[in-house]
C-alpha cells in the first residue's frame, strides 16, 4: 500500500546549498532511489542523482542516507520507521557538483596510477592453467562494483583532504592486493608500491570500508591486512633484507 514518507534532500552546488524537506508517496517494497525518482518526476525535475542499473550491480547511486554511505537502490524504504525522516546527502569525501552528485574523479586518477597487470611473456592465449582455489582470492576483490563507498567512508581521506595525494584508498589498495594475489602476475614490486607510493601504512584497520561494502567484500581482512603482512615480510625480515642487498633482487 502506498503511504506518504518524509524525505530531506540536500540541494545545491559547490557554492551554496541546504536540506529541503519533501513529502512523497512510497509503495510497498520500494527503495530510496525509487522515491527520489518520484520526487524528480513530480516535484523537482532538475534534481541531480546518479544511477544506472537499480539492481546493486553498477555502483552509481552512492550517497549518504541518514549519514551512512549506502547505495540508494539497495536501501529499502521499509527499513526506516514510519515516522522517521529519511535524509539523503551527497558523498562527503568528494567535491559536490550538484544536489546528490559529487565529483568522483579522484578515484579514476588513482585507478590510472596502479601499475597494470603484467602477464607472463611466454604464455600463449588459451594456455593458462590456474586452479579454482588460486583464482578465488583475487576473484573476491574483482566483485567490486566501484561504488566508492569505501573511499568515502575511509577516515584517512574523509576528514583529511591533504591525504588524498598520497593515499589510494581501500578500493585501490585492494586492487593492488588483487594483482599481487593473481596467480600469473609477474610484477614483483607491488608490496613496496602499496606501502611507499599508495599509502597502505595510513590504514589502521578500523574496517569501516568493509562495513559499508555493498558486495560484502572483506576488504580489510582479506586484502589490506594480508598486504600489510606481505609488506612486513619483505621489509623487516632480516634474511630477506640482506638477500635483497646482496643479490640486488627486486621485490621479494
Amino acid at each position, binding site marked *: 500500500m502506498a503511504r506518504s514518507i518524509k524525505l530531506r534532500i540536500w540541494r545545491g552546488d559547490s557554492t551554496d546549498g541546504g536540506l529541503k524537506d519533501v513529502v512523497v508517496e512510497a509503495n*510497498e517494497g520500494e527503495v530510496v532511489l525509487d522515491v527520489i525518482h518520484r520526487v524528480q518526476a513530480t516535484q523537482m525535475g532538475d534534481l541531480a542523482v546518479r544511477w544506472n542499473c537499480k539492481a546493486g550491480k553498477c555502483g552509481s547511486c552512492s550517497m549518504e542516507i541518514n549519514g551512512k554511505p549506502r547505495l540508494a537502490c539497495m536501501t529499502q524504504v521499509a527499513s526506516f520507521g514510519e515516522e522517521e525522516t529519511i535524509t539523503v546527502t551527497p558523498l562527503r569525501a568528494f567535491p559536490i557538483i550538484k544536489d546528490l552528485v559529487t565529483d568522483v574523479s579522484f578515484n579514476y586518477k588513482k585507478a590510472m596510477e596502479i601499475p597494470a597487470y603484467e602477464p607472463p611473456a611466454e604464455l600463449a592465449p588459451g594456455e593458462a592453467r590456474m586452479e579454482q582455489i588460486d583464482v578465488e582470492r583475487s576473484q573476491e576483490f574483482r566483485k567490486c562494483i566501484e561504488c566508492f563507498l569505501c573511499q568515502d567512508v575511509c577516515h584517512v581521506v574523509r576528514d583529511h583532504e591533504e591525504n588524498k595525494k598520497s593515499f589510494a584508498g581501500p578500493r585501490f589498495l585492494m586492487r593492488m592486493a588483487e594483482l599481487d594475489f593473481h596467480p600469473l602476475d609477474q610484477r614483483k614490486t607491488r608490496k613496496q608500491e602499496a606501502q611507499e607510493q599508495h599509502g597502505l601504512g595510513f590504514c589502521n584497520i578500523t574496517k569501516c570500508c568493509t562495513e559499508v561494502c555493498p558486495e560484502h567484500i572483506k576488504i580489510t581482512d582479506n586484502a589490506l591486512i594480508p598486504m600489510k603482512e606481505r609488506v612486513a615480510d619483505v621489509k623487516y625480515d632480516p634474511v630477506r633484507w640482506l638477500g635483497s642487498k646482496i643479490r640486488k633482487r627486486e621485490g621479494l
Partner: protein
Amino acid sequence: MTLERHKYDVLVIGAGGAGLRAAVEARESGLRVAIICKSLFGKAHTVMAEGGAAASMGNVNDNDNWMVHFRDTMRGGKFLNHFRMAELHAKESPDRIWELEVWGALFDRTKEGKISQRNFGGHEYPRLAHVGDRTGLELIRTMQQKIVQLQQKDGRETGDMESGIKVFAELTITDILKENGKISGAYGYWRESGEEVLFEAPAVVIATGGVGKTFKITSNSWEGTGDGHALALKAGANLVDMEFLQFHPTGMVWPPSVRGILVTESVRGEGGVLTNTNGERFMFKYIPDVFKDKYADNEAEADRWYEDQDNNRRPPELLPRDEVARAINSEVKAGRGTEHGGVFLDVSKRLPAEVIKKRLPSMWHQFYELAGVDITKEPMEVGPTCHYVMGGVEVEPDTAAAVGVPGLFAAGEVAGGMHGSNRLGGNSLSDLLVFGRRAGMGAVEYVKKNTATPVSDAAIKAAAEKIQAPFDRQGGENSYSLHAELQEVTHNLVGIIRTGSELKEAIAKIAEIRKRSANVAVAGGRKFNPGFHLAFDLDNMLLVAESTAKSADAREESRGGHTRDDFPGMNNKWRQVNHISSFDGEKVNVRAQSLPPMPKELFDLFDVHELEKYMTPEEVAKGGSN
C-alpha cells in the same frame, strides 16, 4: 564563450564491452581514440550481464567447435541471422575470451585449470565462460584496466597518460556530423555542466547498446534509450529488423519496484525448474516441432540430462528465450500464474544451499535484499522482461561499417543482423568482443585511407540550437510524462504478443507523442539537469519505437522475438525478408530487403531435413548460394 573542441582519429560512442574493445583495437593500431560514455566509466550496461560469454573452446565437452556454435546460433535466430556475422562470431569467440585472460581476467576454472564453461539455453554443449553470475562486470573491468594499461604506456612514452586514448565520461552525443556525405565528427554536451563539445574525427564507432527504456518493464538501465540507433538513422544509416525484441523469460515480478530486473538464465542452466501455481512443470507442453528431437519430453529424462548429457535430451527450461517467454506468458494468461503475474522458478530443490550461493551469488543477494526471498530455500517469482533488441544498425559483417555512411561503424547490441530473430543467451558478450574488435579494425582501415573532413560552422550552429531549444520554450510538455506515455503504448500495443490493429494504433500514438515532444520544455538550468537529459533520450526512444512498430506491423508471421496473434507460426517465405528502416527527416520508412543466402559450405553444415523446416523447397533445392 568559446566552444570546447577535440580532434581524434576515432571517436567511440559508448563504453560498454563493444565500445571498449573497439577502442583498444584502434589504439593498439596507433590511432588516437576518444571514448564517450553517458555514465561514469565502468558503469555501462554490460556490467549487468550475468551468465557468461559463449565460445566453443571445448573445455568441458570437447565435441564442441565453431560449427556447432554456428548451427546453434542460426537455430536460435530462426535462420534470419546474417550468416556471415554468425560465422565470424562462432569462429572468433574463443580467441576473444583467451585474449581477455591475457589482459588479466579471472574466469572460473575446470578441474584441469582451464576456463570453465556452463550450459545455457539453445547451446548444445556447455559453452559459456563465466565468473559466477557476474561475467559482464569481469569483461568491463578487464577492458577498463586494459585501457589503463595502454594509457600508462602512452604516459611513459609521451609524458601524458591521456595523449593516445581519453575517456570522456558523463557526456551525451546529440548529433553525428557529416560533411559531403562522410563522417566528420560528433556534437554533444557534458551532462555535468550542460556545456557543449565538438569532436572532429573521420571515423565514429557507435556502441551504445540497447533500447529497453522504450518499454515499461525492462531489465535495462536508464542508458538503454536507443541513442545509437537514432543517431545512426539521423546520420543516414539503416536499421535492420527492428521488430525483433527479446523478452527475457525471467525478470523479477515482485515487489513492484524491482519489476523487470533480470534473473539470470544460469538459474535454469544450473538446474532451476519452472512451475505454475498448480505445481506443474509446464515447459514440456511448449516444445515446438523444430526442437522436438533436442529437448526431453518427460521429467525423468530432463533430470537425467544434468548427469549424462550424451544419452539424454535437454530439459525444456533450456529452450531458446523466445520460446520460454511465450510459454510463461501463456501460463499466466491461462490463469495459472501467481497473484503478481509470474510463475515459479526453483533451484532450491536441485542444489544444496552453499552451491547456490557460490554459483549464483548475485542472484541470492538480489532476491534476499530486494524481495526478501531466500532462493536456497524457496522459489523465485519470475516473468518476461524486455531485455535485448536483435534489430540494429545495418552493417558490413567483416568491418562493422554502417551501410551507406562512410566513416560510421556500429558494434554490439546497437548493430543488427548477428542474432536474427532471437539471440541465444551468452552470445551477446561474445558478440561485443568479436564485433567490437572488428569495428575497431574497420575504423583503422578507413582512417588510413580517408583524411578528416573539417566540420562546418553551419553544422555546429544547427547542433547548438537543438540543444538550447528546450530551455527557450515556456510551459511546454514534461519529458517525464511523455516518456511514461510512450512506455504505456509500447507495453500495451508493441509488447510480447502483437496484432495488426494494435500495431497500427501504436504507430498513430507514437506519432502523436513525437509531435508533442517537439514542444518539450525544461525547467532549471543546464547543470546536471535530468529533465534536460531525458528530453534528448526521449527523442531517440520515439524514433526507435516508431521503427519497431512499423517493422512489426509489416511482418505478417511469428518468429523469434516477434509474435503476431493474427499471424501465428513461422512462414518460410518471410525468412527471406529483412526489414530496413530509414529516416527521411520526418518519419521512419520501412521496406523489405532480401536476406543474403548462405554459401554452400555453411549450408552443408546442416542436415537438409532441418533446413526444410525453415526454408522454402526452392531454397533447399538450390543448396547454398555458390
